[in-house]
């Protein structure tokens, strides 16, 4: 069974179609990169997996999106527990205006965990997982805004890990970061792969090539090509993919 799967997925924003008949399967413990020019539908596709698209008015979603073989758009599906199982990292580091500790603890608290011991333990583990512990252990009570952009983004990843998801969705997680912070986040993605299934939207082709096992190229709402990353970048089957990855358009 595949970890993630989409079957004949169509998405409409009002009258315009954002995704056209997308079929993809994603295996456990892999990193999948979604690439393509702005407006191609890759972010929309990413947000199908934690139903964040539900927040948009006038959206219509057709087809099946499966996690562990279960259609998450089924009537009566539990959206909150779905989101608990899918940690999300956003384009801009967006820690809450709370302390470093509270940022990571937040997801636990809203999901009903009130035992302080468990919370403290999980917060520590999560921050250690993103290799931020040594930098923040003495200032957990300080505002998360005092951290640098790169540290903030790693904190946001820790925040997503704390609720113990099995899937991590990343929407251009390094586009607002400097090169050093970017490489730290990329290393982190590589390490997290052993425990999680990761889907990452990126504008940066080198990044897709560096971190991902599979790459999907979207263009104007269509899935143009989906293949092993190595294969897609060295031997693209479709000319449009070739043109995009060599920078002839984008």
């Amino acid at each position, binding site marked *: 069974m595949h970890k993630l799967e989409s079957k004949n997925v169509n998405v409409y924003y009002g009258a315009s179609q954002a995704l056209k008949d997308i079929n993809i399967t994603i295996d456990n413990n892999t990193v999948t990169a979604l690439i393509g020019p702005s407006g191609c539908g890759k972010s929309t596709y990413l947000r199908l997996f*934690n139903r*964040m698209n539900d*927040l948009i*008015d006038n959206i219509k979603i057709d087809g099946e999106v499966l996690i562990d073989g279960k259609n998450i758009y089924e009537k009566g599906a539990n959206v*909150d*527990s779905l*989101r*608990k199982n*899918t*940690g*999300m990292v*956003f384009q*801009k580091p*967006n820690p*809450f*205006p*709370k*302390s470093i500790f*509270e940022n990571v603890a*937040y*997801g636990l608290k*809203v*999901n009903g965990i009130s035992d302080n011991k468990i919370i403290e333990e999980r917060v520590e583990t999560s921050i250690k997982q993103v290799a931020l512990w040594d930098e923040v252990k003495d200032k957990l009570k*300080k*505002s998360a*805004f005092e951290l640098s952009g790169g540290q903030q983004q790693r904190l*946001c990843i820790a*925040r*997503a890990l704390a*609720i113990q998801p099995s899937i991590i969705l990343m929407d251009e997680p390094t586009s607002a970061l400097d090169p050093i912070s970017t490489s730290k986040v990329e290393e982190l993605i590589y390490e997290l792969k052993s425990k999680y299934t990761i889907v990452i939207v990126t504008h940066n082709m080198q990044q897709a090539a560096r971190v991902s096992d599979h790459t999907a190229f979207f263009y104007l709402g269509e899935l143009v090509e989906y293949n092993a990353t190595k294969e897609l970048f060295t031997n693209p089957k479709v000319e449009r993919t070739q043109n995009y990855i060599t920078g002839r358009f984008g």
Partner: protein
Amino acid sequence: MDNIDENKLTKRKKRTQNISFFILGFLGYTVLFILVVILGFIVVKGFSAISWDFLTKMPEEGMTKGGIFPAIIGTLYLVLGSILFAFPVGVLAAIYMNEYVKDGIIKKVIKQMTNNLSGIPSIVFGLFGMSLFVNKLGFGDSILAGSLTLGLLVLPVIIRTTEEALKSVDDTFRHASIGLGASKWQTTKNVVLPIAFPNIITGLILSVGRVSGETAPILFTVAAYFLPKLPHSIFDQAMALPYHLYVISTSGTNIEESRPIAYGTALVLVMIVLITNLLANALRKYFSKKVKMN
């Protein structure tokens, strides 16, 4: 050739800049000047009337002597009462409008109604308050009826400022919270409201100023012409500063003699508004600091 043209151009630009700076500066200072003159006028005329007795004693001898204590207390009660009613109702309404209702006709209609509500003359609120709270619901001329009427008056102000405050909270915070499995209410309560709160306080400040100064809505709902005792319950009538000011300047027993008291009353009213504004500002600063540190 080119050089000369450039010089001319620079000169002309500079001249236009100087002229516009002068006009803008002049207008800016004029506004400031008017404000200072009004405040100065009230302070100069009213200061001599201010004394400990004036602030703490009942009016005497047909309101030409004595103090304005019951009017001060009445105004404070009315401010407190109307805010207690309007603040929670307004903030919750704004939360509902901004966080829950989808964009569409219903939202547009409610918004338009709120805007219209803020355009209704305050005397109409007074009449409405009289017929509903005083007569229909039987509260009589009372602090309760007056507070509710004033509360209705400032409701649109609170709704509007709260909505603006909520709108200015970046969606990315909402998404982060919902992405962690939080419900909409958890997100609103734990993330959105704390961020918006300092700006919501602004609405509170504006309302306090408005409520303490309004005369028309309290005219038929609570204000007493002369009542030399403090109210004992929310069903009592009360004196209030703006109405007291109106009474002793237009229909007192001896208008000439009570002139200093009128200016003193005006000064106290202005001071109350000023002090509450400062307090609310401090509150706002405190909350914006708390948002950052916590």
